[in-house]
């Protein structure tokens, strides 16, 4: 996981991927010839209207579903091998916590399944809960937490094994604006520190701009990549240098506008169109 390795390897390579769902009422083309490469350590956001296939694409990378056509490789392996080798950590659109486990028990789950010794496990869980600001809730059960707190537990769980690749499906959707910005800053820090590549689904343009190296704008029915917008946030666009001040810089707003225009296909912007938040 050194920098040299990181630069050369690709984390995810998607070539001409199609996905067709067979349903009772006929076929649904969820994805149409998707090409996308995510370099190791790169932060890529997927943005697009609801139902354009963002979650589907993520599930294909995670080997939770199989593409109808095309190929995907994760660190040079098939998605299946990458999954079996535990190359990625994942946070779903729903928190998906086990209700009979405490917060600490939920975060410990992947460590437990992969045979991490008990002492090391509880040390890591303490660290993770501290990071997501839930240290005081370690012994609570998920149904005693708010939706946003549950999401944070799920994020801590996804980070537990310091994966080289993080797949995150609208992880901050249920958070309030303050916590959301704090978690974004945390995520930037974590991904910079661990050198993890991140594929991040979001509905928020500023969030995508703040976090990403590149923003992938998708269009619906069938899901296609409409445009890939590289983020040029100032001279030192090092991810570690992204701080709260960035949100108020002029370059930031220019990028927000660029993504918004891409999203609306270059046409003049109609406010509130197509289910994308402008916050």
């Amino acid at each position: 996981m050194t920098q040299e390795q990181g630069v050369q390897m690709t984390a995810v390579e998607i070539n001409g991927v199609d996905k067709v769902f067979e349903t009772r009422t006929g076929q649904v083309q969820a994805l149409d010839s998707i090409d996308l490469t995510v370099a190791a350590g790169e932060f890529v956001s997927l943005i697009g209207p609801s139902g354009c296939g963002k979650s589907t694409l993520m599930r294909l990378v995670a080997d939770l579903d199989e593409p109808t056509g095309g190929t995907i490789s994760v660190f040079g392996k098939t998605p299946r091998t990458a999954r079996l080798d535990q190359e990625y950590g994942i946070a779903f659109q729903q928190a998906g916590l086990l209700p009979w486990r405490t917060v600490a028990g939920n975060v410990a789950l992947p460590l437990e399944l992969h045979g991490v010794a008990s002492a090391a496990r509880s040390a890591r869980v303490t660290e993770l809960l501290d990071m997501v600001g839930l240290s005081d809730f370690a012994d609570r059960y998920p149904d005693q937490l708010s939706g946003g707190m549950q999401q944070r537990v799920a994020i801590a769980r996804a980070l537990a094994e310091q994966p080289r690749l993080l797949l995150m499906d609208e992880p901050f959707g249920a958070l309030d604006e303050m916590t959301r910005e704090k978690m974004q800053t945390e995520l930037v820090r974590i991904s910079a520190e661990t050198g993890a590549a991140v594929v991040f689904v979001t509905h928020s343009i500023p969030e995508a701009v703040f976090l990403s190296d590149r923003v992938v704008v998708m269009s619906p029915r069938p899901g296609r990549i409409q445009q890939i917008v590289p983020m040029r946030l100032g001279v030192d666009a090092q991810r570690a240098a992204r701080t709260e001040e960035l949100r108020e810089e002029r370059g930031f707003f220019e990028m927000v506008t660029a993504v918004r225009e891409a999203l609306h296909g270059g046409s003049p912007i109609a406010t509130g169109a197509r289910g994308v938040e402008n916050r």
Partner: protein
Amino acid sequence: MSAVTAGSAQRGMSPRTETTLRIVAPIAVGLIVLGVWQFLVSVVGVSDYLLPSPASIVEELVAYWPSVVQATLLTGTNALLGLIVGSVLGIALAALAARWRGIDQMSAPVVASLAVIPIVALAPVLNSMFGADSQFGRQAIAALASFVPVFINTLRGFRQTTPVHRDLMKAYAASSGQVLRTLTLPTARPFILTGIRIASSLAVISALVAEYFGGPRGGLGGLISTSAASSAYARAWAYVVASIALGLLFYLATLGLERLLQRRAPSTTAPHRTTKGPT
């Protein structure tokens, strides 16, 4: 089953008053019934043949105490063995049926017929199969009666895992044993325990009624029928009282087990009687 349950919660009582009421109310009802009963016999003068007075039943209970205790132990042992064997078989077979569709399809008609045939109808057959001096026939009947609700509820419980949890386990590349331990069994636990609670009453009833159809003497069922046959009605009633106590003991013991293991129940409510047992 329990006389006073829900209902009072809606009327906004404090939890303590509610608990007190839950204990006091059935006792009060019992005392009133006993009072009316004694009144009917000693003041109105209902014949002792028709209805022995509570006092005379208590007298018989005291006079035949050693025999009552022995009979309760004998029937109780039969019921307990049957309950344990039936539950273990029910859980094991449900696990197989949940895993392999073929077993599910093969077992469905068998379980359906077991559920509709009054199992005690098998008593004379089993008694003659295993000889007149064996308790085995009765234990087998109790086991069969317990098996049905445990199997049906457990199978239902095994099917309750949610897609996001299954995806999570797949993403962690969990082995099937790990999935069973960390996901399937905890999800099914409230269903299994409900099955066992229903089975506990059925086991006692079946073990007792099976004694009416011959076989060795000395159990509660046998003594009830011989006492009644020799017109010792008060004594027959004394054994009936012991049977009720035994049934209650089984029910409360399984209810206690359920409470103990469900101290932290998932927020989804446990199922209620899904199957009516045969008698």
